[in-house]
């Protein structure tokens, strides 16, 4: 009776396995490669540099311009990642430098929330979200923030920032949020 379960499709299954084997030679054509470039359209730094008070003039102009940039960086509390990656992007590091300075000065506690896009399994994504939160934590600690100030929680794919099943939504969901 066991043969009823899986037996007769064996021929097709074997053929499929052979077919799957063929495809591996072609490399990862549309899998992760799909992420390159397109998701950079979601720019967390979009607002930055705007309204930097360049009209102030004189020596004060430079200071207020820098202050404006710093305020803009401080306003960035979501840090985005490539697909299946926990590597920090340069723009995230610039914003985290400002947060690190603040945290060193005020000793406040913050929560780092790790998130992923919806692809893949939920518990694996839970782990991946934590890996991202840890990448941010590690960077802040290297900048002199005490680990005791940083609490980590991963939500995996459970709390998307954008709803949708395309790369645009996914890019916004692969993130770490810093919550004061």
């Amino acid at each position, binding site marked *: *009776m*066991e043969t*009823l*379960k*899986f037996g*007769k*499709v*064996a*021929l*097709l*299954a*074997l*053929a*499929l*396995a052979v*077919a*799957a*084997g*063929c*495809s*591996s*030679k*072609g*490399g*990862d*054509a*549309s*899998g992760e490669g*799909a992420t390159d470039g397109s998701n950079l359209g979601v720019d967390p730094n979009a607002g930055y540099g705007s309204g930097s008070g360049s009209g102030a003039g004189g020596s004060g102009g430079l200071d207020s311009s820098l202050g404006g940039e710093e305020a803009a960086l401080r306003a960035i509390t979501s840090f985005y990642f490539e697909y299946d990656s926990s590597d920090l992007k340069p723009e995230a590091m610039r914003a985290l430098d400002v947060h690190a300075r603040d945290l060193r000065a005020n000793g406040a506690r913050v929560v780092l929330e790790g998130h992923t896009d*919806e*692809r*893949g*399994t*939920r*518990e*694996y994504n*839970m*782990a*991946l979200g*934590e*890996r991202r939160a840890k990448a941010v934590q590690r960077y802040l600690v290297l900048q002199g923030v005490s680990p005791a100030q940083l609490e*980590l*929680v*991963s*939500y*995996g794919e*459970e*709390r998307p920032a954008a*709803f949708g*099943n395309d790369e645009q939504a996914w890019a916004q969901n692969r993130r770490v949020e810093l919550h004061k």
Partner: protein
Amino acid sequence: MINMLRGLLVVLCCVAGIAVAQEKNILITSGSNRAIPIAVVPFGWQGGTPLPEEIATIIGNDLRNSGLYEPLPAQNMIGRPSQAADVVYRDWQALGAQYVLVGNIAPAGGRLQVQFALLNVATQQQVTSGSVGGSPDQLRDMAHHISDQAFEKLTGIRGAFSTKLLYVIAERLGGNNTRYTLQRSDYDGARSVTLLQSREPILSPSYAPDGRRIAYVSFEQKRPRIFIQHIDTGRREQVTNFEGLNGAPAWSPDGSRLAFVLSRDGNPEIYVMDLASKQIRRVTNSMSIDTEPFWGKDGQTIYFTSDRAGKPQIYKMNIGSGTAERVTFTGNYNANPKLSADEKTLVMIHRQEGYAVFRVAAQDLQRGNLRILSETSLDESPTVAPNGIMLIYATRQQGRGVLMLVSTNGRVRVPLPTVQGEIREPSWSPFPN
């Protein structure tokens, strides 16, 4: 390359003689080993007001869901006998039915008494018969009971139509406001009841082998924590409160231990808790992600997902010796391992090389070959019926999270009834006691 592969698949399908018929969302692929035609005749009813549901339809759907039987449409039936003595075999032979199932429902003091008989058309012999009683709201229980009886007599395999299903619904109420509920229903999605409701995520529900307790992860404390809940009383117990990840609870075969994932030592590792003493022991040791444990029947083997070789793949380990061995080699993403009851087949979420989609796949553990069981692209959380005949997984349809039931032979694929919100994370119960 992809086109070439698709072309090859088409050719292979033709060679295998597989025809695909799309009918009301139900995919039936039938080849030379086609499903056996069976006539489940609408049951006789001796009461007054019509019953809310046709018991024969429920039984027919059960048998169809196994992928082994094909119920004939009621409108094609010439007669509607309700007992074995009234069956004219010639009529059913003409229809091509190999079996006929007839039955009768009689009211009995506020309750219902159902009698049924299963007949072999070729031999004109009775395969089995029986009767079952219950209250009117147990109509579905009685139908599933008859399905189980018929299926076991026909195949020698215990029927799993009286089993239950756990799943999670996430309902967006607007903005960041989402309502999560943990649901329990019949295996086919009917008669769902809410076991838990929360404004924070609920995930990874799983049935204890006793069918009375469940384990799941709840974020109700704003952190993931594992809980055990008794289904009958609703009594719950928090079993973990560790820093970092607390996830992926999996019951040992005897129900005395729970495997789960903690990241308190720095990265996600699998632990085993003895539920009586609450003692925990770490069983994996790698710098990578180790998660999604699933127990083998021996209570010593744990299958799990790990990215220790770069991409997630499935490994199995002996928790006594601690040695791990890689199990999956086809594809660049294999995760969420589940074993069939006979432990011959590993079901998982799989991504082929060169593809961006995630599908449910079954790997023959003896021969090593792999076949794809789903046709969608964002498939998750496969769960196998205790008799290994069917499985249910989560996927997306028209942008919504839905559950799909598929027969393990791949012949039938049917969506479970849709509800408000996103449905996900199905977990199949064991056989009822």
